[in-house]
């Protein structure tokens, strides 16, 4: 800290020449001049004093016939010349620092994360309503208030956090996960898909189908409505109870597992002669600065100009009070044409692989595959080989459906 103040006030290194330099030191001491770094160099005393007390020290030296010679001067007061010469540079750097500080107190980017069903636009709009938008000043909103307002305005959220890092605002949300509404009233179990019944396990209700029966989507598999069979152990009804003989059907919430063979179909194709366009690997990058008035090229990497190329553009935009300013990077990838011929067997394999991968996407690896069947559906004269792959899968096709009692 002392060194800092020394730099601010300025430090002078002097040489005291004369008969009794100690005398100068003692007099300076009695007058409250702070001296340090006293060193004997060739019978002369060398020491350091603050630039403010150099005149007083010279006066003392004169009184006792000594001479003060300045060796070096350091610190802010001695930078005057430099400051005068470099005024433009210093002002520029000060303006730069101030501008940087000023601009960093605004939000330039707003990100949203954690949303699945709630739309990004909705979140951004709500945040903007409470003061968090591109170009908003950081002091103009309160973090907790915005978080609370987002939670209040959007019902489907259970948690919202506004994180501000530098010029970036990140809105992190967690959506509500509601439990599935369970059917509690009387219901059937119906088929969700066409299939052939493989196994029926009834937990409640009455089975409507049996093994190897073909069912269609919507067919009742386990019925929730049935008539109670007469219990042989129960005493027979008397003639007086004739009215009671009109037996009301029983309604239950049918439950059970109905497994059925279900077929999934996938389609794949492969051209026997294919013109492929591939990237060679060489590329050219150009960077542009786009202002509301003009688009100017900043620099280019890679000298080649390609005759046949793909172009990709990455745009980074900032909305400022003067309009949109963007930094665009255009990358050009060189392409090459390549004719590829497949034999029929190769084409079949490729087409089948494509069909199976498209099927697997549908099945999502949840089901056990029983058998797979491949069928070529294109004519031999065609230049393209089309394949249909069917997969037999055993799965539970039952789904509860409420009974409409009216």
């Amino acid at each position, binding site marked *: 800290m002392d060194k800092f103040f020394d730099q601010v006030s300025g430090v002078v290194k002097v040489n005291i020449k004369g008969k009794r*330099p100690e005398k100068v030191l003692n007099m300076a001491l009695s007058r409250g001049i702070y001296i340090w770094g006293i060193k004997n160099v060739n019978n002369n005393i060398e*020491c350091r004093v603050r630039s403010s007390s150099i005149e007083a020290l010279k006066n003392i030296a004169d009184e006792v016939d000594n001479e003060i010679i300045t060796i070096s001067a350091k610190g802010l007061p001695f930078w005057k010349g430099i400051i005068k010469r470099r005024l433009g540079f210093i002002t520029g750097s000060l303006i730069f620092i101030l501008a940087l500080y000023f601009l960093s107190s605004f939000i330039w980017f707003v990100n949203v994360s954690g949303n699945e069903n709630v739309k990004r636009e909705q979140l951004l709009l709500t945040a903007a309503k409470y003061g968090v938008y591109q170009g908003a000043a950081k002091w103009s909103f309160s973090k907790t208030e915005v978080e609370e307002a987002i939670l209040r305005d959007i019902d489907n959220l259970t948690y919202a956090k506004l994180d501000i890092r530098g010029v970036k605002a990140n809105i992190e949300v967690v959506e509500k996960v509601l439990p599935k509404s369970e059917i509690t009233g009387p219901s059937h179990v119906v088929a969700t898909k066409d299939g052939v019944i493989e196994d029926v396990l009834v937990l409640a209700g009455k089975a409507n189908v049996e093994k190897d029966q073909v069912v269609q989507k919507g067919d009742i598999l386990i019925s929730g409505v049935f008539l109670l069979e007469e219990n042989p152990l129960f005493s027979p009804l008397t003639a007086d109870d004739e009215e009671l003989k009109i037996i009301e059907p029983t309604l239950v919430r049918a439950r059970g597992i109905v497994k059925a063979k279900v077929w999934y179909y996938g389609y794949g194709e492969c051209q026997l002669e294919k013109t492929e366009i591939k990237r060679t690997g060489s590329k050219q990058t150009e960077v542009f600065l786009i202002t509301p008035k003009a688009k100017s090229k900043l620099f280019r990497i890679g000298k080649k100009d390609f005759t046949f190329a793909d172009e990709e553009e990455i745009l980074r935009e900032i909305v400022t009070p003067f309009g949109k300013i963007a930094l665009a990077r255009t990358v050009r990838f060189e392409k090459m044409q390549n004719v590829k011929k497949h034999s029929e067997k190769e084409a079949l394999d490729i087409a089948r692989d494509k069909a199976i991968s498209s099927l697997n996407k549908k099945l999502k690896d949840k089901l056990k595959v029983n058998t797979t069947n491949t069928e070529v559906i294109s004519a031999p004269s065609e230049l393209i080989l089309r394949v249909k792959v069917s997969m037999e899968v055993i799965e539970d096709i039952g789904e509860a459906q409420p009974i409409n009692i009216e």
Partner: protein
Amino acid sequence: MYGEALSGIYCLEESCFYNICSDRGRRMDKKRESISKAVADFLEIPKDIVLDLPKVTIVGQNELYLDNHKGIIEYSLNRLRINLSRGFLEIEGRGLEISILMPDEMKIIGEIRSVKFLD
């Protein structure tokens, strides 16, 4: 030699000069000193404050702190004489430097060989 040395103190404390030089003054001083010493002993106050005694702290062989000094009498790279309220302190060594000099205290650095109290 001491006359020369004392002339160094002359400008620092004029009254002190006369006190040291005259017999009457010396007797008065001793009297005052013995009273102060008795008071300091009775009240258990540090003597360096009451009697204006020097306080020397030596750290290793290369650092010496001195409180309550009365000015520099002689300074060279090998010898340093410092005036005290009574007598003076002689420090001998090699490459002696006064790194801090303030009205009441100073810090001396360099290779210290001996520290002597002289009347």
